[in-house]
């Protein structure tokens, strides 16, 4: 009988924090910009320059630590990680090894197999490196230090995950928490969230872990899922062939769907970590922790509870809407503006998600204003426009954030509910459709629908369907 294998996975997740300035100097963290335009003596490692810690980095890191149930290290320190590479201007990275800011936390995830806790070993703060640009024509390499010194946290999990589904669920949960805190936008494609996967396999029932590999360069959830499956297969094949898994770092190539070895444990560098003497220890008082806790925005679980109580919307809707902070924020703002949370929820659940799917838009990239959605709902309720027109108007709101009141006015989309104006059209429809009239009078209720449709078409959709319906019934009595 073939052996059964279990996959054991732990993650190292890097998240770029949303501070305006870098971790150790006043330079902007803004993405883009001409090479080396966001630099100074500190983030280019000029001799004599010294780092000064950005307090906001500590607060974001504390907030993430608290939201992931970690213990905050109340006297924490930075250490130097020494290695030579040109993207690292000092040839050491300021990071944390001995006293990281947070330890021993967990997040709860849910997959098809139910709920599970994934433990967090530790989280530390560090600086990002610059970017090397290789000029093939010239056979030279250039370096851009705009990213050098951008603040990161690295969250190291315990090896608690067993499937790609659990890994994705863990990453989605982390992303949601961090986005809710406003600590990062967590975009995998842009690199503001990056995950390295540590993976080993072992026979089911085994107590000990197998030899693990570390996989880097995973830029999407899809790549992570593929890489996990590929690496699991590779390791099982090795074991089945009686070979050993080598502890090494592997790089995933998503185009080729294949990983290859970058460096083995033997050439692992000795980083010669030691306490960073240019920075003083960070002392985090109970009061500071309390302040950060108090300032912590409402997280998803709290929001969910409140929505159920406050807005009387279905639990399913509340869950979907709060999955992203962006949609939750839109919902709340629109509900506040029009006072009709159930209707707002409906619009988001149906039209917003439909258009997002059709246009491939992520929640973070939604640009329409909640006030315009609220106005649209008011217009429908007031009978100014009907549902069909409203959907068309919303498409314009979704893409161009138009003001629906103005748009309806300008495009002449108001519903005609004045019987005088409608009467002529209804009479024409009755005259032109003797068969349908006959059928209706003969008891076929369906035939009324055909007459309704004709009338609405003739009115270019702007008629109030309720009024039309009533008029038809009255006139065919």
């Amino acid at each position, binding site marked *: 009988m073939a052996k059964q294998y279990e996959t054991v996975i732990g993650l190292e997740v890097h998240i770029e924090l949303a501070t305006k300035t870098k971790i150790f100097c006043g330079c902007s963290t803004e993405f883009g910009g001409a090479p080396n335009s966001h630099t100074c003596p500190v983030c280019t490692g*000029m001799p004599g*320059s*010294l780092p000064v810690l950005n307090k906001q980095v500590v607060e974001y890191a504390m907030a993430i630590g608290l939201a992931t149930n970690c213990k905050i290290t109340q006297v924490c320190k930075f250490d130097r990680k020494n290695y030579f590479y*040109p993207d690292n201007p000092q040839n050491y990275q300021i990071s944390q090894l001995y006293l990281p800011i947070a330890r021993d936390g967990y997040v709860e995830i849910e997959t098809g197999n139910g709920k599970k806790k994934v433990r967090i070993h530790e989280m530390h703060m560090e600086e990002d490196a610059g970017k090397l640009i290789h000029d093939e024509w010239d056979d030279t390499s250039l370096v851009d230090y705009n990213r050098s010194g951008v603040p990161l946290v690295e969250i190291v999990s315990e090896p608690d995950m067993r499937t790609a589904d659990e890994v994705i669920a863990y990453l989605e949960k982390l992303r949601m928490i961090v986005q809710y805190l406003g600590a990062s936008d967590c975009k995998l494609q842009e690199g503001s969230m990056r995950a390295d996967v540590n993976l080993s396999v072992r026979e089911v029932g085994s107590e000990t872990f197998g030899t693990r590999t570390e996989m880097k360069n995973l830029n999407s959830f899809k790549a992570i899922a593929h890489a996990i499956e590929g690496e699991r297969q590779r390791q099982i094949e090795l074991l089945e062939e009686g070979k050993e898994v080598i502890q090494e770092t592997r790089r995933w190539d998503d185009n080729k769907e294949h990983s290859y070895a970058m460096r083995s444990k033997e050439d692992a560098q000795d980083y010669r970590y030691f306490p960073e003497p240019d920075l003083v220890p960070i002392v985090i008082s109970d009061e500071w922790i309390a302040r950060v806790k108090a300032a912590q925005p409402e997280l998803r679980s709290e929001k969910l509870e409140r929505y159920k109580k406050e807005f009387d919307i279905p639990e399913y809707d509340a869950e979907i809407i709060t999955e992203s902070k962006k949609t939750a924020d839109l919902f709340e703002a629109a509900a506040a503006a029009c006072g009709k949370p159930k209707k707002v929820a409906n619009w988001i659940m149906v039209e917003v998600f439909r258009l997002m799917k059709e246009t491939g838009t992520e929640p973070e990239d939604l640009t329409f204003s909640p006030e315009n959605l609220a106005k649209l709902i008011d217009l429908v309720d007031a009978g100014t426009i009907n549902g069909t027109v409203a959907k068309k108007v919303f498409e314009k709101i979704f893409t161009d954030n138009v003001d629906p009141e103005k748009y309806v006015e300008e495009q002449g989309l108001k519903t005609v509910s004045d019987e005088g104006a409608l009467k002529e059209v209804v009479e024409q429809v009755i005259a032109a459709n003797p068969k349908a009239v006959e059928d209706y009078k003969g008891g076929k209720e369906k035939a009324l629908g055909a007459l309704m449709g004709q009338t609405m078409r003739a009115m270019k959709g702007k008629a109030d369907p309720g009024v039309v319906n009533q008029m038809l019934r009255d006139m065919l009595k």
Partner: protein
Amino acid sequence: MDILKLTALELGKKIKDKEISVREAAEAAIERAKAAEPELNSFVTLDEEGALAQAEEMQRKIDQGEAAGPLAGVPAAIKDNMCIRGQLTTCSSKILSNFRPTFTAEAVENLQRAGAVILGKTNMDEFAMGSTTETSWYGPTRNPHNTAHVPGGSSGGSCAAVAAEESFYALGSDTGGSIRQPSSFCGVVGMKPTYGTVSRYGLIAYGSSLDQIGPITKDVSDCAAVLEAIASHDAKDSTSIAREDYRFTDALVNDVQGLRIGIPRDYLGDGLDGEVQAAVTEAAKVLEKCGAKVEMFDLGLVKYAIPAYYTIAAAEASSNLERFDGVKYGYRTPDYEGLHDMYKRTRSEGFGPEVKRRIMLGSFVLSSGYYDAYYLKALRVKALIKQAFDRAFEKYDVILGPAAPTTAPELGKSLSDPIKMYLGDIYTISVNLAGLPGISIPVGRDGKGLPVGMQLIGNVFQEKTLFRAAYTYECATEKQYEGPAEFGREFGKEARQ
């Protein structure tokens, strides 16, 4: 009137009173430097043109009342490990032999605000690693009192420049004695302030947790005045401390009545030269006669200071010097194949032997498997040394002893035996490990006419106590600054014999 004989404060007063122009003062110093440099080599860069331009500008400011401080218009020299925007800053190393910083060190900016005219950058041991100024890529500096001898180090250029009247005062840096030991060898006054008193921003780091900039001057009054000018709380240096009181010159009081002075017996043991011991003991008696209470005590742990220091300083240095790799600035080897070859050749060619020795030592003590046994243990020793000083300062206001076990050794006699050279730092380095202030003042000469320095050590933030004791000693001995006797007439005679 011989301008060169004036102290910095005396000159500052005469400039203020329009007896001497800033230009005259700068020209006098430059003329002296030009005459002395071929023998002394105190300077890496003597910036005649720049200094005269600064002198004009400073005279204008003084005339218009924009610069009124006691040091306004007085020429100064800066150790070549402090950045000055646009000016060559080499750390006396080949690897920075073409480096011009984009910004100026905070301490130098403070000095410029106080009206200093910067004459140039002084020679030093390469990256401040050495005790003789012989490890400089630009050749050794010689002791103005006897050019066959070294000036001490690593701030040997700054001390020699002040002793030889090439500059009215200078800035040095002190990681393990690099201000106090050469001050002692050159017969000038030098202070290492409490760690955190002078900003390190713009000081090219050697041992970051130990480095501190300080004044090198002709007398104690100048020393207090210069410290007052350079000390500041600097938000750009996270280890900088906001002091409650920066009025160091207020402590220039001729009174040590009741001052409790302790002399560590451990400082008078093996290896201390008899003439040095006699001079320092004599100086202690002078303070006793002035009313101080002097007694001997056991400080303890003295022999552990040197290994702890060389472990910590080398560890930090090995990391601090990683940025010199030929990628961004400084020397790059002309021929290489690929990145790693470029790193290796650049650093092999760019650093001298003493720097390489400390990089290797530092890399070793931080490497995996050795960190606990060396680096962590050294940190524990550092903490114990601090405790030993804490205990001593419960009983004494000032700890008194020699600044160095000997007077200046002859040129060429030290580098072949680095361990022996390191032992010469025995009285100074524990002061850095404990973050304390220490001052070296001249207290006499040995039989060869070489100066002897006495070190006074205070508790943290007690610079004023040190200034008071040093100033009282100076008043009691009527010993204002004493230049090299033969200097200027038969200069370098002994070296040539």
